[in-house]
C-alpha cells in the first residue's frame, strides 16, 4: 500500500511540553483518513509540521514522497488548517485566483466558479471576505485547499462553524473527493459521528502519541457493551473493576454477552437497583473514550 505520509519518531517539544512524542504513522493513499484526539493530542502540531509551518524537534516525515518543506511535494497538497483567514479586502473569487496564481496556475474563471459552486459559495463569490461568517470562511478554505487539484488534502476541522445542512454538504463533498476524484483526504475533527460516517481509516492520538490506528470497521467491531443505568454505581464498579467505565449516569460493562444475565443477577443480589440494562454496539466515540480516557463533555465531543 503506497503511503502519502509517513512519519518516523516525530517529536515536537515546546519547552517542557511534548506536543508530539515519537509519532510513527503511515497514511495510505486513497480514501478519507481521520485523525482523532482530545485537545492537546498533537493533531494540529502534526498538520503544521506536515505543511512545513513548523519544524519537528526530532524525527522525520515524508510527505508525497518528499521531505517536509519540499515545495514540489507541497504543491501536490492542499490544506486548510484551523479557521482560515484571508485578506479582508478580497472577494472569495479573488482569493481563489490569488492562491491559484501563487500555485503557478493560470487564472481560470470556469475552474474558480466551479469550486465556489461546489462549496456552496456561488452567491457570495464576489463579496468581500471581511463580511463572511465562520462557516463561509470554512467553505472558502476548503475551496482554497482544492482549487489546485491536489492529490492530497489536509483539512483541520472542516465543518467547524457550519450549520447542519452545511455539515452534510461538506461530508458529501469530502466523500466524493475520495470516491470520484481519487484524492486522499486527511481530516481532523472533534465530531466523532462525522468522522465515523465519512472516514475509511482512523488514527487516535493522545498526548502526542498514536494510541490506535485502523479502519473504522475494525475499530468499531467487537466492542459490544452492556449499558447499565443503576444505583449505586460504586457497587457496580466494584464488581466490574477495570471492565467498567462510567459514562454520564450509566456504567458501560465490557463483558461478553453470555455473562450478562449472571452479572445482572449478581448485582440485584447485592442490592443494586437496576433501572435499565441494554446492549450497545461500539461506536467510534466509545473507542475514542476508552483509548484516550477522555471525559465526555460537550467540548470534547461535539
Amino acid at each position, binding site marked *: 500500500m503506497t503511503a502519502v505520509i509517513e512519519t518516523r519518531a516525530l517529536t515536537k517539544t515546546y519547552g517542557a511540553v511534548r506536543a508530539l512524542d515519537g509519532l510513527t504513522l503511515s497514511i495510505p493513499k486513497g480514501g478519507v483518513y481521520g485523525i482523532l484526539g482530545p485537545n492537546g493530542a498533537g493533531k*494540529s502540531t502534526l498538520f*503544521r509540521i506536515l*505543511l*512545513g*509551518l*513548523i*519544524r519537528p524537534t526530532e524525527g522525520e516525515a515524508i510527505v508525497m514522497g518528499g521531505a517536509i*518543506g519540499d*515545495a*514540489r511535494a*507541497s*504543491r501536490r*497538497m492542499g*490544506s486548510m*488548517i484551523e479557521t*482560515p*483567514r*484571508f*485578506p*479582508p*479586502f*478580497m472577494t472569495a473569487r*479573488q482569493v481563489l*485566483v*490569488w*492562491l491559484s*496564481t*501563487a*500555485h*503557478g496556475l493560470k487564472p481560470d474563471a470556469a475552474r474558480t466558479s466551479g469550486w465556489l459552486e461546489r462549496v456552496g459559495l456561488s452567491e457570495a463569490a464576489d463579496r468581500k471576505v471581511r463580511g463572511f461568517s465562520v462557516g463561509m470562511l470554512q467553505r472558502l478554505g476548503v475551496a*482554497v485547499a482544492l482549487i*489546485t487539484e491536489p492529490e492530497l488534502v489536509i483539512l483541520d476541522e472542516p465543518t467547524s462553524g457550519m450549520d447542519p445542512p452545511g455539515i452534510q454538504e461538506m461530508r458529501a463533498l469530502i466523500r466524493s473527493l475520495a470516491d470520484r476524484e481519487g484524492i486522499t483526504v486527511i481530516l481532523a475533527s472533534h465530531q466523532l459521528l462525522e468522522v465515523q460516517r465519512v472516514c475509511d481509516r482512523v488514527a487516535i492520538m493522545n498526548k502526542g502519541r498514536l494510541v490506535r490506528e485502523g479502519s473504522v470497521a475494525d475499530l468499531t467491531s467487537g466492542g459490544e457493551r452492556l449499558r447499565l443505568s443503576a444505583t449505586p454505581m460504586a457497587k457496580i464498579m466494584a464488581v466490574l473493576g477495570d471492565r467498567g467505565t462510567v459514562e454520564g449516569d450509566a456504567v458501560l460493562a465490557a463483558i461478553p454477552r453470555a455473562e450478562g444475565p449472571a452479572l445482572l443477577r449478581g448485582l440485584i443480589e447485592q442490592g443494586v437497583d437496576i433501572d435499565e440494562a441494554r446492549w450497545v454496539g461500539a461506536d467510534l466515540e466509545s473507542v475514542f473514550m476508552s483509548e484516550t480516557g477522555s471525559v465526555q463533555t460537550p467540548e470534547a465531543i461535539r
Partner: protein
Amino acid sequence: MSVTMLADAVRSEAYRFARDRTAVIWSVLFVPVFGLVAGGLGQMFLKQKMGAISNAQLPPGLLQTGTLDMGQTLVSTAGGLANPGLLLFILIGLSTLFAADYRWETWRLTSARNTRPNLILGKVGVAKLLILAAMIAFLISEVLGELVKAAIFHRQLAFNMSGEDLGRFFGLAAIAWIRVIQFAMLSLLAAVLTRSLLAALFIPIVVSIGQFFLMQAMPLLGWEPGDWIAQLALPGLAYDTLKALIQQGAAGAPEGVVYKAAISLILWLLLPLAAAIAWFGRQDLSKE
C-alpha cells in the same frame, strides 16, 4: 522550476497587492495627486495675489516669467525622488506588503505553495515595482504641475533634454529607486523580526532619523565624508555622494569615495534582505 516558482510568487503578490486599494492609494497615488491639487491651488492663489504686484516687486523665486523647460523639470524631479514625504507614504504600502500576512494569518496559505526564500523575494519584487510606480506617478504629477503652472501664468513650454541630461535623469532616478529600496529592505526585516505592521512602517523611519543625527554629529566623531566608516554607517551619505557624482561629474564626488558609496548602498540592500530570508526560513508560521 525555482525561477518559475519565483515568478509565481511575484505574480500572486502583485495580484493581491493591486487589490488592496487602501495601500495602493496611500502609497502610490496620494502624494502625486495631493501634490498636484495643492500645487495647482497654490498657483491659482499666487496668481490672484500677484495681480496687483509687478514682477519687479516680487522676490526672484516667485517670478512667473520665461519659458518652463519640462526636460529640466524631469531631471530636477528625478534628483528629489527619494524625498522623505514620498518615502513615508511608500512605506505605508511596503509595511502592508511585508507585514500583513502575519496580521491576516495568510502565510499558512502561501507557504505550502512555494519555498520560503521565494516568498520573501516575491514580496521584494513587488516592493520594487511599487516604488517604481510611486516614483513614476510622482514624476507625472510634477510634469502635470508644470503644465498647470504654465496654463495659469501663460508661460511658454519647452522640452530641452540633451543626451547628457537623459543620462543624468535615468542615473538620478535609478539611485533614488535604490535608496528607497534600502528603506524597503529595512521595512522587510522589521516586519519579519517583529511580525508587526507598525514596526515595518516606523523602524525604517527611526533608523533614518538616527542616521540623520549621526550625519550631523560627524564632525564631533571626527568622521570625514570620504571615510569608510562614514560611508558604511550612513547610506544617506553614500546616496548623496553618488547623486553628486551624477549631477556634477567627477567634480561632485571626492576622489576615491564613489566605490565606497556604491559598496555601502549594496550592503544596505543585501544585508537586511539576507537577514530577513534567514530569519523567515526558521520562523514558526503557525503563530501569526
